C-alpha cells in the first residue's frame, strides 16, 4: 500500500485524521460534494458556491459583509483549484468548512494526476517555509501556473494569514492520487481585514 504524504502546515484533516483536533470539535461544519464538470459546464457556479458558503459562515462574525467577502475570496480560490486540477472532472470533489472557536478550516479534496500532485505538494512545502511576499513577486514574474502552488495559495497565505497543508494519498493501482488541501485562517484575520501572518 502506498503511503500518504503530508506537506505544509496541517492543522487537521477531519475526524478520521490523526491531526484532527479531537478535544475541540468544530462548532459548525458544512460539507459539499460536487462534480467538477458541473462547474466547467456552468462556470458561475464556482463563485455562487463560494458566495453561499461564505454567507453561511459570515453570520457568525460581527461584520458579516467583511467576513463574507473574505470567506468568499478564500473559498472561491480553493474551489477553482480543485476544479482546475482535478484529473478526472467527472469524479466528485469535496469542499468542507469547519468552524472552530478561533479559526475556520477549509478543506478541498479531488483526484489529481500523480506527477501533478507530487509537484503541488512540494510547492506547498516551500510556501509554508518561504517568504510569501517574495514568492508572490517571483510568481508574478514567472510563466502562468502549470501546477504547483500557484499564485492563489500564495495570496491566501500572504494576505489572509492562511496556513496551508496538503495531504496526498496515492492510489494502490498507480491511478490518480487523492489530494486534500487544507487552509486554516484565524477568525480574527477574517474580521480584522489585516493579515497577522
Amino acid at each position, binding site marked *: 500500500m502506498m503511503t500518504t504524504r503530508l506537506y505544509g502546515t496541517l492543522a487537521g484533516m477531519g475526524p478520521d485524521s490523526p491531526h484532527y483536533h479531537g478535544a475541540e470539535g468544530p462548532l459548525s461544519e458544512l460539507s459539499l460534494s460536487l462534480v467538477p464538470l458541473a462547474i466547467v459546464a456552468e462556470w458561475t457556479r464556482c463563485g455562487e458556491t463560494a458566495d453561499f458558503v461564505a454567507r453561511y459562515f459570515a453570520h457568525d462574525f460581527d461584520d458579516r459583509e467583511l467576513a463574507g467577502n473574505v470567506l468568499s475570496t478564500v473559498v472561491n480560490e480553493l474551489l477553482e483549484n480543485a476544479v482546475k486540477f482535478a484529473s478526472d472532472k467527472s469524479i466528485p470533489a469535496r469542499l468542507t468548512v469547519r468552524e472552530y472557536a478561533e479559526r475556520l478550516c477549509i478543506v478541498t479534496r479531488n483526484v489529481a494526476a500523480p506527477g501533478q500532485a507530487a509537484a503541488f505538494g512540494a510547492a506547498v512545502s516551500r510556501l509554508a517555509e518561504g517568504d510569501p511576499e517574495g514568492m508572490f*513577486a517571483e510568481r508574478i514574474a514567472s510563466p*502562468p501556473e502549470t501546477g504547483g502552488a500557484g499564485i492563489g495559495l500564495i495570496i491566501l497565505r500572504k494576505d489572509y494569514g492562511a496556513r496551508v497543508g496538503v495531504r496526498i494519498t496515492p492510489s494502490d493501482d498507480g491511478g490518480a492520487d487523492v489530494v486534500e488541501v487544507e487552509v486554516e485562517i484565524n477568525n480574527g484575520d477574517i474580521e480584522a*481585514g489585516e493579515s497577522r501572518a
Partner: protein
Amino acid sequence: MSLFEREPYSVECVAGSDVAVLRGVMRLPTPAAYDALFAPARALIESGRPSTIDLTGVSFLNSSGIRALASLVLLARDRGAPLQMIADDGIPWQKKTLASFRSISPSLRIASR
C-alpha cells in the same frame, strides 16, 4: 431581487481620459482570460501617458485576475509609464493584495478612496 441577478463585469476607458474604470465581480477562469477584458487598460499604459486604473468598483477579483492586473503593473514598470491605482480600502482584496504590487513596482501609486 432575482436569485440570479448578478453585477456584470466591465472595463471602460472614458474617451479623452487616461482612466480605466473596472467594475463588477471578476472571476474569470485563467489569467489569459483577462487579456481581452483588460485590453483598454493595457492600451492606456502602452500609450506611455500617466494612467489610472480605478478598482473601487471591483468587489471580487480572483487570483487569475490579480495575476493579470500585476502584469499591467509590470508593463507600466518596464515601459517607465506612470501608473496609479485607485482602491477601496473597504474591499478586502484591495486593501490586502494591492500593497504587494509596490514590491514589484516601487513607483506604483495607490490612492485609497
